[in-house]
């Protein structure tokens, strides 16, 4: 849609967007700032998943557990110790990354679809743990009254400051993910996503790469967890259900898999519409479900592709020949019902 705009102008527009982001607290009322901060938290959350799902093609349904691990580690540290915020962030991110590596190690022996089930199981076990280990996690009520952080003398009590801090963290996380995508690791992941066997034949250590990306993606989700704690001053198990994992998958898909801006655009649409279109709340999951299916069928690059922002590296959902075959089938209905007239152009999926 916007692909006719020259690249330099797009870059200036992006810069203007970032500047606008920093000026936002002076322009709008606190409610909008809070919504914007939520959108950014979910951008970071989805950025972590985008590395795993978008680049690596590894379906993780336990990403909310990583988010939750980061949030609970941060909450415990801030409640029990007087650690500085910077140290809390380092501990949470590293702790979550280790957790992610442990989950990722399970991908050593099993492939994509099994991994979805393992992560689903791991997420459920984590959720049960959150609800039952009352002395550590506060059980179903969670941990309220977490003190606001102080980042190198910068007091984050005011929502404006929290927002600015989250904005900064989002930019860092997005830039980090962009660098990863450009790096050898990112290219290896894309190769693994497209064909594991060929990737292995080209000397890529497939299992190790998968485990590493799980760790990195989990670390970024852990950062999102810390930001969530800073924003809400509270953690509870309800924020880390499997529905949240599915929400993250939705954000990544709708925004655009394996793109830099995808998670941001996706969470603007998904989280923003949840906040502002409350009249549609009853139809929400239907709309996003349909959007997910449509995007996967026609525009695998998501919003980034639809808006024409930059290259998309999403796996091609519908190849041209399959599309033609589909059109041909719908054009001549009888051929669908007789086996013999069916064109033999389609190959079975290997």
């Amino acid at each position, binding site marked *: 849609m916007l692909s006719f705009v020259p690249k330099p102008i797009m870059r200036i527009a992006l810069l203007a967007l970032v500047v606008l982001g920093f000026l936002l607290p002076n322009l709008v009322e606190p409610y909008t700032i809070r919504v914007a901060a939520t959108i950014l938290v979910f951008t970071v959350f989805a950025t972590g998943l985008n590395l795993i*799902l978008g680049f690596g*093609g590894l*379906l993780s349904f336990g990403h909310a557990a990583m988010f939750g691990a980061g949030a609970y580690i941060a909450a415990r540290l801030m409640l029990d110790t007087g650690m500085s915020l910077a140290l809390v962030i380092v501990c949470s991110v590293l702790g979550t990354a280790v957790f992610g590596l442990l989950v990722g190690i*399970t991908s050593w*022996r*099993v492939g*994509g*679809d*099994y991994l*979805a*089930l*393992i992560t*689903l*199981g*791991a997420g*459920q*076990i984590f959720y*049960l743990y959150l*609800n*039952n280990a009352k002395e550590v996690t506060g059980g179903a009520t969670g941990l309220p009254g977490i003190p606001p952080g102080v980042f190198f003398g910068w007091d984050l009590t005011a929502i404006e400051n929290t927002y600015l801090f989250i904005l900064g963290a989002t930019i860092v996380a997005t830039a980090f993910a962009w660098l990863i995508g450009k790096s050898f690791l990112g290219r290896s992941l894309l190769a693994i*996503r*497209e064909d594991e*066997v060929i990737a292995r034949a080209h000397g890529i250590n497939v299992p190790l790469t998968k485990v590493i990306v799980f760790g990195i993606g989990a670390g970024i989700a852990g950062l999102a967890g810390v930001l969530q704690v800073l924003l809400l001053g509270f953690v509870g198990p309800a924020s880390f259900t*499997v529905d949240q994992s*599915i929400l993250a*998958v939705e954000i990544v*898909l709708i925004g655009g898999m394996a793109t830099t801006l995808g998670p941001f655009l996706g969470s603007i649409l998904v989280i923003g519409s949840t906040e502002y279109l409350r009249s549609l709340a*009853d*139809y*929400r*999951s*239907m709309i*996003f*479900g*349909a*959007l*997910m*299916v449509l995007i*996967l*069928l026609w525009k*695998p690059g998501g919003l980034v592709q639809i808006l024409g922002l930059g290259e998309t590296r999403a*796996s*091609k*959902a*519908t*190849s041209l020949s*399959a599309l033609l075959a*589909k059109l041909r089938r719908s054009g001549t209905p009888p051929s*669908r*019902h*007789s*086996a*013999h007239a*069916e064109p*033999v152009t*389609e*190959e*079975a*999926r290997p």
Partner: protein
Amino acid sequence: MEFLQQVTNGLTIGSVYALVAIGFSVVYGALGLVNFAHGDILMAGTFVTYGVYTSFHLPIVISCVIGILAGIVIAGIVEEVAVRPVLKSHLLIPMMTTLGMGLIIRNLVELKYGSGTLPFPSFAGSGFFHIGDLQIARAAVVTLVVAVITLVLFAAFLKFTKPGFAIRVVAQDMTAARLMGVPVNRTIMAVYGAGGALGVIGGLLYANTLEVVYLGMGFPILLKGFAAAIVGGIGNLQGALIGGLVLGILEATVGPAAGSYRDAIAFVLLIAILLVRPAGLLGARVQERV
């Protein structure tokens, strides 16, 4: 004796898991695809039974049949809309499109019935049978009997009928099946329909045992079904049956000791099996051909 009682209870819930696992496995075995809408399909079918029974006052058996038919139709729609167009693309894509379809189905049911827990008309009646000291609920007996009959019928369908034969052929080699004149598209639809029907039967038995239906019932049963299917070797139908029973018995015997972590048994089992023996207890060694 108490142990025997628990094993009996385990067999009952295990046979529900087995039905759901087989519905899921038949799709996986034929196409190599995980159907994430399976839980929502079985939930929707159970709700159709509930709706037909409460609003038209049909006999419960006929309501159940209508619910099962609805499950077949919904599964067919999911296949046509979300699976067939992306059958040849990356493994990930059909998984996520079925997930999206599941969200749509759940939302539609929620719009009609809300997210509360509704009383399900038990078709087994209450009361207990006594065998020695063993006490078996009527619902449990009905569950076991229906599950066994369904599984035998389904095995016969696969073994002796033409569509069943086509399913086995497609599972072995889709391209060869197409070349031999097997109507592959129709067969894939039959696979999904059969999966949907088995799922709804499982859902109905589950609802009958608990005497409730609720919006979220699909997901936990689906997870247990996944676990059962994997324990037995995913795509392996006998394996799914044994996996379901093993899971049910484990939950009933180990469950009380695990306390509030009872639901974690299935997932721990799932992860352990995948780590130690990815092909499942009964599965053959999987070798990837290039």
